């Protein structure tokens, strides 16, 4: 157990100090750590390994509960582990023909598993083949490759979504959206409006990047979003996380933009990697939000004034699922109503919390 503790401490400290932020960075760091944890420790049964990963996961998630990607990656890994053990078990039981054992119906993605008992932990007493360990690690490496190639899978769908001479609106700086638009610009000619996203003004950076790629880009103040919405053909958004109900945790200003789009019946498309999809529910609008330093809203130098007023500077908005028309993930396009299915396919219901 102790062999990986230093690495875990290091990542926990980085998450707490916010030295690591952004879904993609934390997801990759988490996965890297988990590969080390799994390969360096000895384990023989499924329970042992699940307990080990969960104990690490709990610490990481508590370090910064708002980085939902950390929890998602851990759940994905746990899911992979359970699947691999289940497979190994079924192959063992197939070999031991004498013992009559009804192997679970293929994988958990069947309708049977949805309704019946799910995620039954494999029996601890079974002797697994020696290749199991390397198989699990290989599966997790595949997961890492998936993370690295996530932009390619998403941006390949760009030409299906964006047509010539359209006007696209977006907000904030999202790597996924940036890649998506750049890919579309290879084949089509269209115009992009970027809301500047005060107070971080990340929209301005986004506009700069897009215009460098030769896309006709206009920066608009956040206040003008509603006014120009009627001219827009499509709103394409990035997000920090997607919650179980299809709601978004996205940069502040997104809710306003999505609401304006709904008012004008303009489709809202969200580009996101699957690792941002979380099985957690937002019970409270603030639950996954981060409140930043108010300095960028009201300067600390103001002196007297700051004693008399309270300034909050929330970094994210919660956008409810009925504002979103389509999710473009690395596994294709899905309506919000289909997300439950993705959650079932990717996560084991036993892993929604990391309590042991």
């Amino acid at each position, binding site marked *: 157990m102790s062999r990986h503790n*230093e690495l875990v*401490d*290091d990542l926990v*400290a980085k998450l*707490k*100090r*916010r*030295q690591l932020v952004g879904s993609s960075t934390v997801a990759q760091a988490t996965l890297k750590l988990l590969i080390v944890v799994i390969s360096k420790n000895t384990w023989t049964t499924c329970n042992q390994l699940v307990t080990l990963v969960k104990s690490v996961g709990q610490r990481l998630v*508590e*370090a910064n509960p708002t980085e939902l990607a950390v929890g998602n990656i851990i759940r994905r890994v746990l899911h992979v582990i359970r699947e691999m053990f289940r497979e190994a078990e079924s192959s063992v039981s197939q070999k031991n023909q004498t013992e009559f054992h009804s192997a679970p119906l293929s994988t958990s993605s069947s309708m049977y598993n949805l309704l019946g008992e799910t995620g039954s932990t494999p029996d601890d007493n079974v002797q697994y083949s020696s290749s199991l360990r390397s198989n699990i690690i290989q599966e997790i490496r595949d997961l890492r490759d998936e993370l690295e190639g996530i932009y390619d899978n998403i941006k390949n769908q760009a030409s299906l979504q964006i047509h010539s001479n359209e006007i696209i609106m977006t907000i904030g700086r999202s790597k996924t959206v940036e890649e998506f638009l750049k890919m579309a610009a290879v084949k089509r000619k269209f115009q992009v409006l970027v809301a500047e996203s005060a107070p971080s003004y990340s929209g301005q950076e986004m506009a700069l990047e897009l215009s460098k790629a030769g896309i006709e880009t206009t920066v608009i103040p956040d206040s003008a979003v509603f006014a120009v919405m009627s001219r827009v053909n499509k709103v394409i958004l990035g997000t920090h996380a997607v919650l179980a109900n299809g709601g978004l945790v996205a940069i502040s200003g997104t809710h306003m933009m999505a609401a304006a789009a709904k008012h004008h019946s303009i489709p809202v498309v969200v580009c996101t990697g699957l690792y941002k999809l979380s099985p957690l529910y937002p019970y409270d609008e*603030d639950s996954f939000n981060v*409140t*930043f*330093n*108010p*300095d960028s809203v009201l300067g*600390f*130098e*103001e*002196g*007297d004034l*700051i*004693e008399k007023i*309270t*300034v*909050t*500077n929330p970094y994210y908005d919660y956008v409810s699922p009925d504002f979103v028309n389509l999710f473009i993930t690395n596994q294709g396009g899905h309506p919000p109503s289909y997300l439950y299915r993705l959650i079932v396919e990717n996560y084991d219901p036993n892993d929604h919390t990391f309590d042991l």
Partner: protein
Amino acid sequence: MMTEALKQAGDVTDIEWEIIVLHTPTKPVQSKKSTLMEKLQQTRDDEEEEEYYRNYFDERFRPITLETARCLLPLCNVPLISYTFEFLAVAGVQEIFVFCCSHSDKVKAFVKQYGKSSNMKIHTIVSQECMSVGDAMRELDAKQLIDTDFILVTGDVVSNMKLDKVLDEHRARRQADKSAIMTMVLKKASPQHRSRAVGDGSLFVLDQASKECLHYQPVKAFKSTRRDRRMTMDMEIFDKHPEVQVRNDLIDCQIDICSVEVPALFTENFDYQDIRADFVHGILTSDLLGKTIHFHEVSDVYAARVRSTQMYDAVSKDIISRWTFPMVPDSNLQAEDCYEYRRGLVYKEKSVVLSRTCVVEEKVVIGANTQISEKSVLSNCVIGKNCVIGSNVKIDNAYIWDNVRIMDNCVVQHSIIANGAVLEHDVTINKGCLISFNVTVGANATVPAYSRLTALPEDEDEELVSEPSIVGATGRGRSYKEAEDSDDEDEEVDPKNKGVNRLAYDMTALKLEEAKAREDSASEFESEASDIEEEEANPAEELDREIAQTLDRAFKEKHDVDIAALELNTLRMASNSNFHEMRKRIIPGVLKHIDLAAAPGSGKTVKEILARWGPLIGRMIHDEADQVDGLFILQRACAGLYEDSTKSQKVFAPALRYFYDEDITEEDAILSWYHSEKSQQGTEIEKKLREVATPMIEFLEQSESEEEDDDEDEDEDSE
């Protein structure tokens, strides 16, 4: 012309300032050329060593700090020092030295525990005599712990600043110019800003182009003497720097990037105590050292020091209002914490029990396992772990630490209540109180504003004598009285300045107190005023006293001549006097220690004293005019030592001989002294002393004429 050169920046107008520019003749400044070799040696390893110390010498948190270290006081339920460690950790610091003196065991235990959970190397250095930054730096130099540049911070800094930019800047500057020994980090804020420590202001004279600090002066909140209201700076500054800023709008959070030389400089100048008032001021006013101090101005980050209860209040509020992000309670910097952020700046641990009818208003932090009963109202406050708050309690603006019990119907306003304190029912705590560990305030008591209560007995051996008039009949505790006699005799604190950095301090309250004080001691004030005038009028006397003290110390502690000379030189520069003034005091000062009756070997005979301390006199004498002057002083000094001329002669003759032998005074000087009218006048003894020198003069004259003859002979030979 002076005012033209001054570019006023910041808000200097709210305080009356006389800016005095001192005109001194320009001296050639030694330009330091760093050779290539030096530059090569400059490439340092990336590991930045940190040194970090805490000062206990200010007593603003008493009586709470009688029982624990200031850096361990909880700020929003996290020990103060954790914020500093965290700040350093974010800056990528790998090694920390912690200096501590009082309560070192508690600090050590905490640091040990903290070090386990982080990957920094933290060393604790305990030294009881370490009373100031100066002492700590000297200790550091003595132990040779640091061989790279380092960051110097106090244990009460709260900041979310990223230091890497400052470090890079400092490094680049050091590469270019070796004399840049320090970079101070200054934060811009308006003069009335709450994170500005009242009464701890500073005035900086800066050159924006070269980022150089040219002059520094501490500022008091109330300037009662003319000296407080005046700033003196060197005219030379304007010759070198075309554009100068005089600024009062900077918060000095004492985060300094120091080079390796800094501890050594502290050792050389062993009267330096404070890093700002002594070190920075000293380095900048000294034209001998040729060192420069630079600054880095930050504006979009948070940085403050918790140096007083007023700052404790302000910084707590800044943390709760998230100005220190990401150092906020819900970041859970301590491993065991689990705070959640709620709307309205409320931070709550998971295990808190709130009753159905209690009201948690804005800006509240509630620690683990705390219970709050019916109808209690909390606003703008911090409540620690395991507290029990009864029903109908009103807490506003207060800081309640761990394990405190507050019973029904209490009212607490703008105060600090330390661990384990108990407020029985119907207690009222008025604003500005400090209630120390384990004090019990009995039922129905009303604690007056600005009280300081402690449960420690006055003497360690005695039992605690409770004061029922303050803590009630069933209470336990006494009011703490500040020790009036401050150790620092030069630290004349204006009584008004004492109160300003208190918790919940406000001007109106002060005026009342002040008026009362006036009534009480109107005469005292007057006498004080006249004292100050006298002191101002007579710097010579002060110099007398200081030199005498320095010499006494040097004799008693057997200092090196070098060190004594350095100290005296510093005094000379500090008092802006010349070498004549110094000689006038030092020569009699040294001779005074001669004991004619002493046996050889005791170190007090004429010969021994001269051999040991003569070089010191030599340091004060340079050219011929000095030498003649020195002899006059010697003559007078010897005459003044004893009533009996024979005794005086016993001192004068060897001294003169010594001066001649050691080339302190040359022949010409001795001759011109002997033949001058001034030496022939004066008292009887002085005249007799001159006569003592006669044989020597004759000898000198003779040898001189012989020499001349020789010269002539040689001349003749050559022809």
